[in-house]
């Protein structure tokens, strides 16, 4: 299932924006086993957004499992590098 971010959110800057996306991602994974998030048209994200949208997934499954079930597409490099870095930082042993 492809989640087009701009269909659901007016911005990707706050924790609340992130929580909305997290709900959509979790719903897609629950129903279909995986989620594709399409960031076409989004100029940037913040750490608050990424922290709320994606980090809670690591409380429910391993990082390897997240990698299998979540795809991020049509996103600017600022967005992909922030998501990748935050997920890596949070899943590393020192983050505990």
């Amino acid at each position: 299932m492809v989640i087009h971010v701009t269909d659901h959110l007016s911005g990707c800057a706050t924790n609340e924006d992130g929580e909305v996306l997290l709900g959509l991602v979790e719903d897609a994974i629950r129903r279909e086993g995986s989620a594709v998030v399409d960031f076409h048209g989004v100029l940037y994200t913040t750490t608050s957004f990424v922290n709320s949208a994606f980090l809670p997934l690591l409380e429910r499954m391993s990082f390897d499992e997240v990698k299998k079930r979540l795809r991020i597409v049509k996103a600017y490099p600022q967005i992909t590098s922030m998501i990748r870095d935050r997920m890596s930082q949070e899943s590393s042993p020192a983050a505990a």
Partner: protein
Amino acid sequence: MSEMVVSLVGALNYPSVAYDLDAAGLIVQSPPDTLIFDLARVGFVEPSGVVMLHNLTRYLHSMGCKVFYRNYNEPRPGLLFLDGAGFFEDVIRTKAFEGTRRKATTLSLREIRTIDAHGWVSSDFLPWLANCSSRSEAALGHFGFCISEIFNNIRDHSDHQVGSIFAQWYPNIDTLKLAVGDFGRGIPATVATVEPELAGATAIERAFDPKFTSQSTPKNRGAGLDFMRKNVCQSLNGTMTVYSGGAAVLARAGGQIVHLNPIYGNSGYTGTLFEIVLPTHRIPEANPEEEEMRW
């Protein structure tokens, strides 16, 4: 009725205003009934001075203090710059000089509520900077995120849900200078809630650690300052100075953090102010390509 005069002397920037407040004996949490800023000896005006003086004025007003300005309408370069920045229009509701007008390369001083900030970045800030720097809004996105990040910090850490911002783009050096600040409790005080042994610049530096979070709200999980440093200082070769709670650090181009001299004075001004210098010519002209993320 108590009255106090604060003379602002020399360069108008964060450290010098803090020094002048202390010299006058002002304690901002218990201000006099009336405070007069004397601008007769103001010299070069920097963005951090514009924003700090604006925040201070707003805060004093909120404390019931009447604020006036003296000797502000002598046509000297610093005061003309302050007028062109929109400072007097905001604080005394009129321009100081006939004929000064905002340049296209000036983003007027404004106070923004945290709930409005992210929309403002998209609708006002990025189009303005794109026009100045001849870069697309998409190319500027990974700097725009920094402004949103600062306003998220204000929301998470300040009792006053507003921030002031002022920016000037300098075409001769193709560089942006921007200051944005709040009147919160300051980063050292926030860091001390979880690591009380840290203070001053050491505490501000700790806040740059991607593993550090004060968890001041349940949703706050940190890493914002670390990403700002990577974007501004490492990717774009800019600099970022953070003044907060009587201390200051500079993140140099490349990312190294150095401690600056403590801010002089005991005026009680704790607010945080970011001053960012961004060489916009370092931003690639080509639009970034949307991509699929590789884990």
